[in-house]
């Protein structure tokens, strides 16, 4: 059972984080996905990111919809409560949970079908609300669990395993997210360990919604010649915006950077994100520039990866709702049931 891992006493030389926990406190159950599935690499990065950030795993909730991607929350952070909900509806469940307990740290894992098709409505409104949530899409351009049908992120002209060519344009979830008001939008590749880890750590530090679209090839149904989401194609067309480095608030900034070629973003929690530019003109806090970049790279048949857009200090949904500091779900009766005098007053108004 995915319950509190009775962590064995740490071996003397085992690496521990700032909570004195070793990485085993962040692991999950054994994966049941295909060997070589990009999703497994992403789960590994999630484990590393939460471990290195020193997040109490009991504070984390991990949620998902339905599909291959949505199975993966079982494969990381066993000590965290998990919720594998219904197809395309992870955002609403995550929203409710965060309303109930603002002290939680939520990571929602979805897929390109779960988000881009059946869940596009909930995706859209989640992006608008800027709820504290890491919304990670494991994007392989196909429905794996039902054997390889195209999903809405399948690129125009890409070929399915059975030879069918996709004749519809793809939905670019990052472009949509930026347009809809998301405050942290990134794209990465499951095979790029370093970049993905930095992005995940930055997302953990971010206070609003982080949308991370991770191209994650499906080794069984979408890794062939003619597919634009195969390992080979993605490696050849990955166009990193630059190097992404992340320094959490609890570490000294020792990164040497040249202000001209590197953008430094101060995150809300005091962490820092360093984005070394490969493209001279790119500014990740400029919404229009971000949208233009996505359109241009898509037109070239490339994937722009890295932190595409960031707005670190925008009020999140819980601030907008002006909630009390304590978790709503834990308020005692005395604070949620008004006194008798209130009912008397209401009754008097109706007489």
């Amino acid at each position, binding site marked *: 059972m995915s319950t509190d891992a009775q962590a064995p006493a740490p071996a003397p030389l085992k690496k521990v984080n700032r909570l004195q926990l070793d990485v085993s406190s962040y692991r999950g159950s054994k994966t049941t996905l295909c060997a070589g599935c990009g999703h497994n690499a992403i789960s590994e990065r999630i484990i590393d990111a939460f471990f290195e950030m020193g997040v109490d795993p009991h504070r984390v909730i991990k949620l998902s919809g339905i599909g291959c991607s949505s199975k993966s929350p*079982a494969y990381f952070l066993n000590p965290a409560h998990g919720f594998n909900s219904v197809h395309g509806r992870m955002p609403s469940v995550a929203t409710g949970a965060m309303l109930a307990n603002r002290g939680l740290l939520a990571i929602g894992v979805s897929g390109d079908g779960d988000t881009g098709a059946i869940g596009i409505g909930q995706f859209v409104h989640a992006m608008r609300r800027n709820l504290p949530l890491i919304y990670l899409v494991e994007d392989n351009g196909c429905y794996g669990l039902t054997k390889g049908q195209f999903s809405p992120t399948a690129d125009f002209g890409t070929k399915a395993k059975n030879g069918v060519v996709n004749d519809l344009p793809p939905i670019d979830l990052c472009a949509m997210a930026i347009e809809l008001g998301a405050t942290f939008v990134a794209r990465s590749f499951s095979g790029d360990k370093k970049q993905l880890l930095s992005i995940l750590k930055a997302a953990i530090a971010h206070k609003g919604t982080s949308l991370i679209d991770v191209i994650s090839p499906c080794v069984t149904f979408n890794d062939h010649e003619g597919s634009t989401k195969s390992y080979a194609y993605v490696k050849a067309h990955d166009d990193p915006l630059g190097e992404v480095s992340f320094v959490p608030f609890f570490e000294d900034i020792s990164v040497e950077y040249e202000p001209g070629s590197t953008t430094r973003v101060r995150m809300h929690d005091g962490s820092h994100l360093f984005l070394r530019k490969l493209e001279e003109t790119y500014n990740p806090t400029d919404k229009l520039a971000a949208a233009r970049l996505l359109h241009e790279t898509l037109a070239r048949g490339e994937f722009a990866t890295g932190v595409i857009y960031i707005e670190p200090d925008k009020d999140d949904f819980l601030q907008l709702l002006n909630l009390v500091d304590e978790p709503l779900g834990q308020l005692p009766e005395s604070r*949620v049931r008004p006194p008798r005098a209130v009912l008397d007053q209401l009754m008097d108004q109706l007489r």
Partner: protein
Amino acid sequence: MSSTLPASEPQQAQASASVTNDFSIQIATVNGSGSQTANLVLLRTLFQMGIPVSGKNMFPSNIAGLPTWYTIRANRRGYISRKKEIDLLVAMNPETARDDVMGLEPGCAVVYDAPLRLDTLRSDLVFYAVPFDKIVAEVCTDAKLRRLVKNMVYDGVLAELLSMDAGEMQQALARQLGKKPKALALNQAALEAGRTWASEHLTKADPFRVERMDKTTGQILIEGNTAAAMGCLFAGVTVVAWYPITPSSSLPETLIRYLRKYRMDPETGKATFAVVQAEDEIASLGMVIGASWAGARAMTSTSGPGISLMSEFAGLAYYAEVPAVVFDVQRVGPSTGLPTRTAQGDILFAAFNSHGDTKNVVLLPGSVEECYEMSMASFDLAERLQTVVFVLSDLDLGMNTWMSKPFDYPEKPIDRGKVLDAEGVKALGGTWGRYRDLDGDGIPYRTLPGSGAPAYFTRGSGHNDMALYTERPDDYTKNVDRLARKFETAKSLVPQPVVEDVAGTQIAIIAYGTTHFAVEESRDQLREEHGVEVAYLRLRAYPFPATVHEFIRRYDRVYVVEQNRDGQMLGLLRIEGEPASAVRLRSVLHYNGLPIDARSITDGILAQEKAGNA
């Protein structure tokens, strides 16, 4: 039509046999003409005079321009269900006036807008022609406001015709418009003008009149949705997610008002609640489930189309055992149906909402007071049983104005159900599993995210008692059998039926929800007019406790009275009941979108009694 009527002088009914405090007034207007204030003033005046009243709004799914009818029933015996027959018509709408008049029983009275010339239509009614435009023009110089103020003139005319207390009416008007002094003054003038004109120009020729009583002392007037919102407030709701839909919207909207007023932290000014107007009903229930899973008391409110959309999530709440409260203020289906008319048509769908072997707890409030009480009960039950609870109100109960005794402050503390913290799990010494039945009641213990207690993985896919994924046949069966056991436990926890046995009769009625008030009146009709005594059981929840089946066994003919076409509750009683009892059950159905009335029940029962078993 008028050409076929006799040309002779109208026969005016004799006013000699007066009918006191027992009539219904129907006011026919155009939607959006501002008649609601005038109608509520009438209702409230009668109420303040101590006369039992009820008010029902029959309105179109439209903002302005279509016909609307408001019916006020005054009844000295306290009957507050709809009365089918109209006694006094106020015909303000030219489009419907002819049909409105032609539908009346002989002897009724009609107050009408003089230019409509309705008196030529029939000779067996009492007509009062009132030049509304002329009267209102004298008191209201602003032509734009006349259309609104005109309504208050018919209040004045009725006040004079029925001998309503002028002081009470002034007070009722002040209650409605007290915060708007200009509007108040204008309407007061219109009211007086109507009264004065009527006293100077009309000769009373109908038998209807009012007289002060003391039957409403201490009572309140309230809509069911308001009562339910109040229940949610005192239930300590912390998360509300909803999507606008008639006739449910006024429930969350009223709740929002209450929460903003009574649930802001006095020290910090911050909210002890979260309300989200979601993107649709699916997301609404998703948010409720997420919130309840993480420890909140969460609810949503909707109507038929909403629970259709919520079905998948309802099954998740049932199978993954997450508390959720769903108010369904029923309207007429199928599909969009008649959005502004009432029905009890979601019984079976709520009970079995979602695919697979899903069974849901359904509460059936039968009064505004029960809207309040069952709202509180629904949260306790959802958390105690860790499942979705549907509260099935309807448009008639939710949006119409009902008399009630004042509500009681909850005596019992809030029940948060079986929730364990880290210590609690430890104390169980390793026996805890998320879906393990430790108490034999089918209800497992849960832990909350963020509490530091051991975690588990919630899923709608197959799971064993340790919440691990499984497709094993024995694991599946064991789990759903426990869910069935939990549903058995629910029978003793839900609101129990109200049983009125009658010795020596073979006839009984089973009803629920708003049908109750018509049943009460119908039982009196059957006894007083036909000498037929009828036992009565009022259902208040599903699943049914054994008392329901025992009751059915005691009577030969049990009429299940309900407001749908297919006899849904009768069907449910057959599914759940004893096979031998099935032959005892009969249907009396009412499904035209209007609230059920006593006469329809009386006639329906008598017809079946005569046909088969009299």
